[in-house]
Structure formats: C-alpha cells, structure tokens
C-alpha cells in the first residue's frame, strides 16, 4: 500500500486519497485564441513516463485538499509532495 504524505495532514495510507493524473497539464488561458492542436493536447495528451512522474492527488477522505506528488511509476517510491503553489 502507498503511504502518501499530505502536505497539510502528514503521512496517511493510500485509501484516503484519490488520483488526479499528470500535474503538468495547464488549462489554456480563458479568452485566449488557441489552436485545435493546443486544445487537444490539454484534453487528451498526458505525460506517461516510466520513472519519475509529477502528479496530482486529492486527500478526498481527509482534508480534501489537492496537492502534487513526485512518484516513481515503476517502483512506486514517493520522492516528494508539495502544495499546489509550491514547486516539486
């Protein structure tokens, strides 16, 4: 079982969290003209590395905060967690 350190609550077991995917995705700015390609990239294309991956998790059965996790997708080692406005 993963043990994830919520930046607000500390280390908790995996069942308290839900996964939110690639943390590098940025929604295109509101009102800005963008191409279909940029929009497709935002909606459908994600980083899918084997190794270090930055991702979003939600402490859904805890403080209900979203935060960022740097995790290895092959070994499941968690390197670091951070609040959304902090750098990983």
């Amino acid at each position, binding site marked *: 079982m993963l043990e994830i350190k919520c930046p607000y609550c500390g280390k908790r077991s995996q069942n308290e969290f839900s996964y939110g995917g690639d943390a590098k995705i940025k929604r295109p700015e509101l009102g800005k003209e963008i191409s279909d390609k940029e929009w497709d990239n935002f909606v459908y294309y*994600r980083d899918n590395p084997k190794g270090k991956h930055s991702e979003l998790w939600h402490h859904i059965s805890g403080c209900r905060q979203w935060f960022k996790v740097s995790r290895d997708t*092959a070994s499941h080692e968690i390197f670091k967690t951070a609040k959304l406005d902090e750098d990983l």
Partner: protein
Amino acid sequence: MQKYSIFSLIKNSFSNHQNWEPAWRDPELKKEYDVVIVGGGGHGLATAYYLAKEHKITNVAILEKGWIGGGNVGRNTTILRSNYMWDANGLFYEYGMKLWENLSQELNYNVMYSPRGVINLAHSDAQLNVFARRGNSMRLNGIDAIMLSKEELITKIPFADFSNSARFPIFGALMQPKGGTARHDAVAWGYARGADNLGVDIIQHCEVTGFDVQNGKIIGVQTSRGNIKTKKIGLCVAGNTSLLASKLNMKLPIESHVLQACVSEPVKPFLDHVVTFGAGHFYCSQSDKGEMVMGGDLDGYNSYAQRGNLPTLQHVLSEGVAMFPNLSRLKMLRTWGGIMDMSMDGSPIIDKTHIEGVYLNCGWCYGGFKATPVSGWTFAYTIAQDHPHELNSKFRLNRFHTGHLIDEKGVGTKTWIG
C-alpha cells in the same frame, strides 16, 4: 510442422512423449526483414501469423524483450465477448468472435474456446433499460444478445444473492450466449507455432532500444541483439507503447495503468457462465481447474509495475462478495497485475502513424485479450496494404483531433473525473 492429432498422440506415446518437436524454432536474428513486429504477445503473434497467412509476407520478425506469453496475454481473465453498442466496436469484436469459433481448427492447437455465455447483471429498472438498448443495438449488428429475467437468472446462477435485502438487488441481465472464455496461454502458443510454421522468426529476449528514421521513413530498428534493417514496423507492446513511441518522438493519448486479477483455490463446478456485477466493476468465471477467476478496477494511478496494491483488490472482491456471498469462504491462490495501455476514450488504436512504415496497435484498455485474433487480422491488413481495413477504420489515431471518439462507456483512464 508436426500436426497435432489423436494419431500423433498415440504415436508419441510409444516413445514416452520424448520426441515431440519444439512448437517453434529459436532462430538467429537476420540482418533484414520486410516487417518487424515489436512485442511477442497475443496481438503481435496474431499479427505476424495473419501477415504470413493472409498477405503472404513471411520475412517477418517478432521481437520480444521477455518471453512469449509472459505479458498481458498470460495475465488476463480470458473473457471473450462482443457485447458493444457502437458499430465501430460491435462489428470489430463480432468479427473477432467468428475468428474465435474456428481458431482451434485454424491453428491446429486447442485454445479451449468455451462459449459459456457472458451475463451482465442489472440492478435497477433504469439499468435494465440501458441493457435492452445495448442488446437491441447488438442484434442490429448481428450479435447474439438476450435479456434474462430474475427467474431465468436464478436457474442459471443460483448462488448469486437474489434477496431483496441485497445492497444492489438483481433485477435481470443482458446475456451474450456466444461470449465465454478461452485458454490464454494456448492462444499465445498456438499463434506462435502457426506463425513460426509459416516462416516468421520469433526472437525472444531481444529488446528494442531505438529506431532509425530517415526523411520521415523507418529504415531500421536497434535492438539489444544488434541492428536490423526494415521498411515496416508494427508496435504491439500494450502498456509500454508510450515508452517506445517516445523513442520516435511521438506522444500518445495513452496512460499506462496496472490492472489486477486473482484466482481462488479450486472448487467443484459452481459457476457455468462469465458474470459481471452491474453496480460496480467486477467480473468472474470459473476455470476448468475449478478456480474462480476474478478481476475488476484499475489501481487508479499511472504504473509500470506489474503488481498492484491491496486496497483495490479488497474493493474489487467486496463487490464479488456482494454478488456471490459464498465467495467470502474461498481462499485466494494468486493475485497478479498487468500494465494496461489506457486510451483516453477507452477504445483501441490500430492505425498508421505520420512516420512512413510505422504502424501502431495500442490503447486496448481492459479488453485486449478477446480482440487478439481480430486485432492481429486487421493490423496485418493495415501493415500489408498500408491503409486500415474497414473493420478498424474508426480506430484512428487522429480521432482525438477530429472529435470522432468511440466512447462506449466513458471509461478510458478517467483522468477528467479525478
């Protein structure tokens, strides 16, 4: 090739079965091939088989970094079905069902196709309506589908919880009678033997490390056992597709996730059909050895580890116990995980790419095993003819750009739900 029959069995019994030929050769890697298939799983082996058989392209290599049948083709829950509503899926998988029906004869290898019927339970009137709609769509596409009442279900799966006090009472079901199971290892070995017999080189323990692309065309493949020249390559590497595609500077609408399955200790015949739970994600069947074969949800986060975590397994099996309460008395024998190539709309991609000579077969999500024959058949056509067959004409890579998604159940990776 040594043909398998009652006569060859009797003949070999006189020599204590010591003189059977190997089912396939262990050839040396050649310097050049007409087509290189990356990935010696079910889809790769089937692709090579149909390339040789249907399109007479026999100078083909299958490169497998592990061993034949060691990946997802040996890790699934062996379910076959074509109970899809959208035409693109229904017609594709139904063609696959027709291939399954004759596969043992075609390959001279018993794949133990067992059309025992796939039953999808419904737990509300609304769900029954949805299933009736799906069943009608299936029938319009020539796929067998029947609705079962609760009374009919009681005779078919008497051990399910039919009480009204169940958390999700059973209202009825949709059944595809021709759906069922097959022996997964036999499928891999049968296709390997068939392809090898037609001249295909199966190279095990050979990892692809890079590609040679010149002027937008593929000209070669770099492997752990040397470089090969080729004009066409087909990628059939399931959960590792993104990694190989990144070596071609391609980013794909795919995430790799781990999906677990498990089997219980063997028990006497208890369940004649494949049954799925309609109020969650759980499916089970009983193997010929008597084990209950069960599976359900993804672990839910990106993973390249072929092992899963306990919370998901607990969640999946709690659904199983809700459906068949007496499952709670069984001991688990084994659990394992496989890496799924989850596409963003939950449907596969069988297509050409922008690089000439590079073909893509991926995005199988939970359901690659049942598609093994038809995936190989259509992918072989796509590689040989350099354009998709009508059956896979909707499974294009550019559908995420054009908006022609095949969102059968809105599954996929669920990244937008969070």
